[in-house]
């Protein structure tokens, strides 16, 4: 590949004429990239520049990645010859309306260290391929950010989507603000604002989003005056650590061991204190997770259930090893809690009828003072769920009789839409949620408990021979999730992964293999990747 030679195109070169500024926008369809390109063109023209913008519209609206391209040069009365698409290594300013689009720009060679100022919104819009994995299929933002630092002359990144949404506008406005704030174009702020004002729609909100991003971009680029490595290749780069660290930091939670604020009747609070004291007595590395797990199981059922949880957890702590930072106990604390809080109809009904949930929905739809909220829930119970909520013996009786099951299923198995803002709908769910107190006697509970005990014992049995493997067995609990068919499929994956245990036992890398199997199982719906991995294991 031939590189463009920069020494031949400085401003002073007689052949170069007026310098052409080349700016590309990479956006996801629907983000208003076209509006942004039009604005930039108008700003340039307003400042006595000739500008040309191009795009490939059409599919742009339909959620795909799209490029808009603008070239501009000071107007000398002669028409410059502008290109119609960006070239690798020949872009001065690259605006990415989403972080992975910044990555795509780098990948395509539109961002170069000596040349390009990369202005990117740090928010993510997950692509379909990232969303459909049963596990976490999302691409690594950190890798893109790190690469962007290296690849660009200057990297300005912050959440411009949030600024836009907070101001009731679209990201095109905050992207323009970031561009203006970066000072990369030789145009005054007012000319941008006048351009927005001239566009005529949603002007106030757009200007607010513009201003928010403008200030942020200026703030973010402030450290230019204090280059970290003077004279180095990045001496012009704005270290955006103030921006990124602010993004990365999670708000600190209250003290998880004691559980933060807990409300309830005195009697229960007293019992809770006893449990909290048990958590406090656990080895330090386990406390955080155990505290969270305890809260989850008590919230799910009741205080005695929390006691059960700690009893189980302490079995792991007893055989654990401080040398290994109590990894076994931490894993147990996490997965025991999840296993004990299996998703049944009672839990769903309980969660859906809480006042906190009601408040959350109202917050989410930003309910106005004068408006009324109606909430419809989508349920589709089947005979399996019905039997699960029966007393264990009755539930088994029905399950063992296919004809009876089928008969009942025909009456139960259909979609039910329940209005939880109505009295009847709410009451129905409230009653089901109240069945919590009998949960221990129900069929589902006995099935789940048996499964849990088997899995937990299996893990603990491996501790003496292969500690790491025992931890991985505990981690396999992550596979179990979903409802109905999805839940069945999840169980099948769980069983298939653990079926490799006999083959792996005794190997040095058994834990590593089990982890790989689990990750393969989370890659696709049916577990095709897992089957492939299992075949590999069989050949070991």
């Amino acid at each position, binding site marked *: 590949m031939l590189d463009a030679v920069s*020494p031949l*195109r400085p401003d002073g070169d007689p052949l170069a004429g007026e310098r052409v500024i080349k700016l590309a926008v990479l956006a996801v369809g629907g983000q208003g990239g076209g509006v942004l390109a039009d604005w930039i063109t108008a700003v340039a023209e307003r400042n006595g520049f000739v500008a040309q913008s191009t795009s490939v519209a059409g599919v742009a609206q339909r959620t*795909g990645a799209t490029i808009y391209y603008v070239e501009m040069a000071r107007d000398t009365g002669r028409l410059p010859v502008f290109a119609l698409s960006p070239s*690798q290594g020949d872009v001065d300013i690259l605006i990415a309306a989403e972080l992975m689009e910044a990555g795509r720009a780098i990948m395509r060679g539109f961002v170069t260290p000596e040349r390009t100022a990369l202005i990117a919104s740090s928010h993510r819009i997950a692509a379909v391929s990232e969303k459909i994995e049963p596990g976490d299929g999302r691409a690594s933002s950190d890798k893109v950010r790190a690469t962007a630092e290296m690849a660009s002359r200057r990297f300005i990144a912050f959440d411009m989507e949030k600024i836009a949404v907070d101001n009731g506008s679209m990201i095109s406005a905050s992207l323009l603000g970031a561009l203006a704030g970066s000072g990369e174009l030789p145009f005054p702020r007012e000319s941008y604002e006048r351009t927005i004002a001239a566009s005529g729609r949603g002007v106030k909100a757009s200007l607010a989003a513009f201003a928010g991003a403008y200030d942020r971009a200026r703030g973010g680029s402030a450290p230019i005056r204090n280059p970290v490595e003077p004279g180095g290749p990045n001496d012009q780069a704005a270290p955006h650590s103030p921006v990124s660290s602010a993004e990365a930091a999670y708000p600190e939670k209250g003290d998880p061991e004691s559980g933060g604020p807990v409300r*309830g009747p005195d009697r229960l609070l007293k019992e809770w204190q006893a449990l909290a004291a048990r958590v406090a007595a656990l080895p330090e590395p386990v406390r955080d997770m155990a505290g969270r797990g305890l809260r989850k199981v008590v919230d799910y059922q009741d205080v005695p259930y929390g006691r059960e949880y700690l009893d189980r957890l302490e079995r792991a702590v007893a055989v654990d090893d401080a040398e290994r930072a109590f990894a076994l106990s931490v894993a147990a604390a996490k997965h025991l809690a999840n296993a004990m809080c299996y998703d049944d109809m009672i839990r769903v009904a309980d969660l859906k009828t809480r006042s906190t949930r009601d408040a959350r*929905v109202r917050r989410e739809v930003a309910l106005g003072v004068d408006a009324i909220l109606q909430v419809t829930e989508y349920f589709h119970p089947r005979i399996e769920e019905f039997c699960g909520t029966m007393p264990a013996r009755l539930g088994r009786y029905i399950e063992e009789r296919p004809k009876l099951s089928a008969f009942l299923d025909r009456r139960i198995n259909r979609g039910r839409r329940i209005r939880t803002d109505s*009295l009847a709908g*709410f009451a129905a769910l409230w009653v089901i949620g109240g069945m919590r107190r009998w949960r221990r006697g129900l069929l589902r509970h006995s099935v789940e408990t048996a499964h849990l005990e088997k899995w937990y014992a299996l893990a603990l049995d491996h501790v003496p021979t292969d500690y790491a493997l025992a931890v991985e067995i505990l981690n396999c609990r992550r596979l179990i999730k979903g409802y*109905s068919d999805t839940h069945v499929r999840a169980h099948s994956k769980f069983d298939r992964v653990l079926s490799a245990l006999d083959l792996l036992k005794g190997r040095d890398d058994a834990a590593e293999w089990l982890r790989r199997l689990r990750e393969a199982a989370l890659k696709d719906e049916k577990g095709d990747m897992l089957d492939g991995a299992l075949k590999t294991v069989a050949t070991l």
Partner: protein
Amino acid sequence: MAERSFAKEVEKLRLGAGDEYAGEGILAITKALLQCGVGYVGGYQGAPISHLMDVLADAQDILGELGVHFEASASEATATAMLAASVHYPIRGAATFKSTVGTNVASDALANLASGGVTGGALIIVGEDYGEGSSIMQERSHAFAMKSQVWLLDPRPNLPSIVKAVEDGFELSEASNTPVMLQVRIRCCHVHGHFIAKDNKRPTMTVAEALDSPRRDTGRIVLPPASFLHEKEKVEKRWPAAVDFIRSNRINEFFGREDGEVGIVCQGGMYNSVIRALQRMGLADTYGETDVPLYVLNAVYPLIDAEFLEFCEGKQSVLVVEEGQPNYIEQAFAAMLHKADRGTRLVGKEYLPVAGEYTGQVMLDGIGGFLRACAPQLLSSEVRAPNKTGQGDTIPDLSRVVPGRPPGFCTGCPERPIFAATKLVEQELGKHHIASDIGCHLFSIMPPFELGATTMGYGLGPASASAFNSPDATRRSISFVGDGGFWHNGLTSSIGNAVFNKNDGVIVIVDNFYSAATGGQDILSSRASNKTKSTKHPITEAVKGMGVGWVRHIDRTYDVPKMQATLREALTTEEKGPKVIIASSECMLNKQRRERPLVDKAIKGGERIVKPKFGVDEDICTGDHACMRLSGCPSLSVKSLDDPLRDDPVAHIDQSCVGCGNCGEVADAAVLCPSFYRADVVHNPGRWDRFLESARRAVIGFLQRRRETRRLSFADA
């Protein structure tokens, strides 16, 4: 109505002599047509020429004043056949469509039009959608010009040049009695620029005047013996006339020095990219002044032998920059040099890729390679022998990190539930052969649906499944066709064919009330009233009229269980012959554009309005993402919880949700999970609403308090 209103652009069509026009390339062409006194315009929408059609559709007043007839043609063949009006009458006419897909459809009419020739100027404006971002195959319009012997203009991609090309095109057509194709590439159509306008002209003869004084000339009709004479006339009269016109009017342009040892010949459309490459090598300035001799072909067919040979005079080597393959131009030039016994060395695809788009880097590499080999003295030492090998070695490769982002269904798209239902039916009844068609519904081939095996052309989905009709098979084929494709070609080629041949397959007609993929233009079955078009012709009636016995109409595609049941029935019924399901719901993009302002106004005006939005209870969602495997909706995404107990991100619905209902329907139909809810916000509730609300809130609040005071509550739970 098209999805965009062009009221502002329409006003630009009124600009008079000396006014400056500023805007998109394709609209400049539209204005140029009126300046040329065009008498009628037809076409079929498609990127990148949709806007030409949309603007004219919105400009009925201006067209009426000028006496210009405008038609949204049923297909590209219709549009081209329409140019028959210029055969006997001195009326200028224009047809426009996307190429090469449209040109393929237009071929029959094009061949006949070209054979008889034209009296009035006939211009075919083809929007060339070639290369990156294109939804179609990379073929060349050039081949059509050659096989039908019509002339092909490929102007430099700036507004003054393409406007001039429209004027030249009409004159060339009239001078040579031949239709002329004007090729504009997609980026040129969407380029923003300026030109100085002229006054609009009334056609010298309007279609009304022609109708009132009909003419005919047997010699222009394509039937022997006239058709044999046409072949002679094409080469003996029309071709020389065209060559003469192009040469004497200097349609092709020369730039740079006259006496260089090397030269570059390029298609007009490639000019800016060539200059950019030269600029980057220090051989051209910002305004295109260059030391390298350039011969720019604004007319790429026919080629002018004498012009080219003159250009080659004294040159040792000449590079042909010709995007696309086969390299017709390069071959023709090579033959010219050979026959003239010239020593100039002609190169082209040796330095430039045989196929694919000529991007900036490709041009830089290709022209750089040519100059390094043939004229190194022109280059500075840095370009001649660069020390740097590029930055690629230090910057990590992100190709394994950055996910692909192909276009997909919009938020709330009514087609999504159709494919969700299809996927569910396949889970039940097994995989089927699925034939797809052209249109938004083709996004079904991508994740998460991954449905569809082939796409054979607009309206040809069911036709492409016609071989799969066997009494020995236990499964039926499923084929899709959109309402756009249905009216374009599908009614006869697909439905009629299936009836006639007793095809036993299942045909799903995706009816979203518009030709949606091309920009939401109205079609026969559109539900909107259109002042100038006849709409509201039901597809069901057309299908029944065609002779289909088994027809089911689903008038709300979001009803996934019903869609699923209907598909199941179609795949399993004993009935013979094609099973046609018409699945109708309005394109959400258009619906939102139309309704959102109305709804906002109604809310402000105090009307009772219910606005739906979906949400996910994140503590009920287990993070399996089964819902997303049946959706892919942009508003339904994944979100990390700030909870170390949870490993996987949960589902989350953002503010862009339009409350279409797919999430809830799919959760129900696929028995997924109960974490979805629909939140209907009742704006401006009535008195009864308020009374009911306060009563409910009182009881519900009581029950909640009762339970919550008897248990432990955690602040963050």
